[in-house]
């Protein structure tokens, strides 16, 4: 894969390479943070100095289906020793699904000093770069967060309904089988969290993985434009809602559209199919 600067992205501010990370391991203005789906991975080996940001423990509200509040975010950032000026470089498994999810949550609190390490944990590992098992500890900071602002990058079900009725575009990033409603769950798994199958009306099905290369890195801008604009006619000025099942895969697509292609108004519907597929009397499409 070519260097990030040569891929034609709208901005390279939010994406760094594994090589860049390896050259900045001792930069005190940076904090590397691993965010995985597999809870065992961080402890089994991580980038030297990296902290863990766990998607359930650190990002979700402990009781409600929601994200942490201002004090919770402050506690997280103080624990990892980050200030408002610290640039947090996120990476993880699953081609950075959960890293993008964490990155997206950080934006709810205006922590724009954040980047994704292209290719995530697997690329770092496959390149033979060092992994350590010692958990990193930093002196606690005095991080002061603003109140959470959901308005810019997050969208709720009533807004999605308005969005649908206004005929504005949506991107369903789930697999084709989930999109068509063919699969609600795997055989022998009675509950995957939705009572109805299908997709939100007029949503385009663009599985998140189409934006990623085999090694987990992001495809070039030309390749991404061919998918999102060429095949699906999404335009940079469109008001777009992305969704999946709980909002983690769609965080990946949100990142691609917003930062790599420069789309100006993309929001993530984290209620996603586990909410929409259970709602009473909302429209659903199936082929």
């Amino acid at each position: 894969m070519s260097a990030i600067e040569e891929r034609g992205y709208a901005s390279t501010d939010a994406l760094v390479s594994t090589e860049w990370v390896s050259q900045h391991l001792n930069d005190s203005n940076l904090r590397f943070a691993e965010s995985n789906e597999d809870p065992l991975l961080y402890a089994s080996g991580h980038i030297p100095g990296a902290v863990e940001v766990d998607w359930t423990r650190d990002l979700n509200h402990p009781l409600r289906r929601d994200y942490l509040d201002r004090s919770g975010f402050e506690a997280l950032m103080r624990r990892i020793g980050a200030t408002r000026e610290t640039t947090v470089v996120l990476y993880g498994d699953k081609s950075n699904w959960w890293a993008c999810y964490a990155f997206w949550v950080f934006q709810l609190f205006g922590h724009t000093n954040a980047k994704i390490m292209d290719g995530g944990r697997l690329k770092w590992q496959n390149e033979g770069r060092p992994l350590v098992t010692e958990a990193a500890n930093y002196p606690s900071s005095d991080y002061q967060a603003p109140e959470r602002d959901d308005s810019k990058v997050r969208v709720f079900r009533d807004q999605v309904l308005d969005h649908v009725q206004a005929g504005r575009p949506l991107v369903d990033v789930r697999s084709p089988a989930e999109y068509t409603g063919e699969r609600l769950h795997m055989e022998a798994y009675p509950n995957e969290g939705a009572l109805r199958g299908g997709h939100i009306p007029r949503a385009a099905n663009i599985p998140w993985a189409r934006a990623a290369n085999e090694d987990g890195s992001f495809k070039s801008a030309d390749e991404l434009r061919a998918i999102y604009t060429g095949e699906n006619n999404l335009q940079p000025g469109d008001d777009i809602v992305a969704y999946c099942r709980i909002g983690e895969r769609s965080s990946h697509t949100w990142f691609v559209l917003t930062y790599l292609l420069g789309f100006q108004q993309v929001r993530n519907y984290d209620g996603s199919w586990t909410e929409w597929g259970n709602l009473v009397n909302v429209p659903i499409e199936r082929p």
Partner: protein
Amino acid sequence: MLLEYLDLAGDRDERIQMLIDIASRFRSVPDFIATRPFPKSHLTPACESEAYVWCQELPSQALKFHFAVENPQGISAKCMAVILDETLSGESASSLAQVPGELVYRIFGKNLSMGKSMGLMGMVSMVQSCAKRYLASGKADRRLEGSREAGSGSAVP
């Protein structure tokens, strides 16, 4: 015994370390049971760690389980494989057919993603299915396609 050992963990970090230690005991399926490319019929559905499961009938007519995990980052799948092998191998097929999928939550806790839960529960389901096939066959007298004589039992298809 292994499950009781996990219950001794004082906190999340300690439990995770225990699980990592368990995963380090993982040994991939021996050649006398299967060699690459592994048949897709042994691939766990919905498991993104590409976990394969085989069971072998021992001379005692008990079943022993073998696993392969093809994703280098599939550490939870490797841990699950070790636990399934060490706790279930040697049990009767009728007991194995009743192993609850909720075992996954007892081991890993309830804060697993749906994808991870499905993959790990799929491994349990593969064990159940193998035991049920064995029971339905009356006796596992057929050889797994591609497997070879081992002298210590036969693979259940």
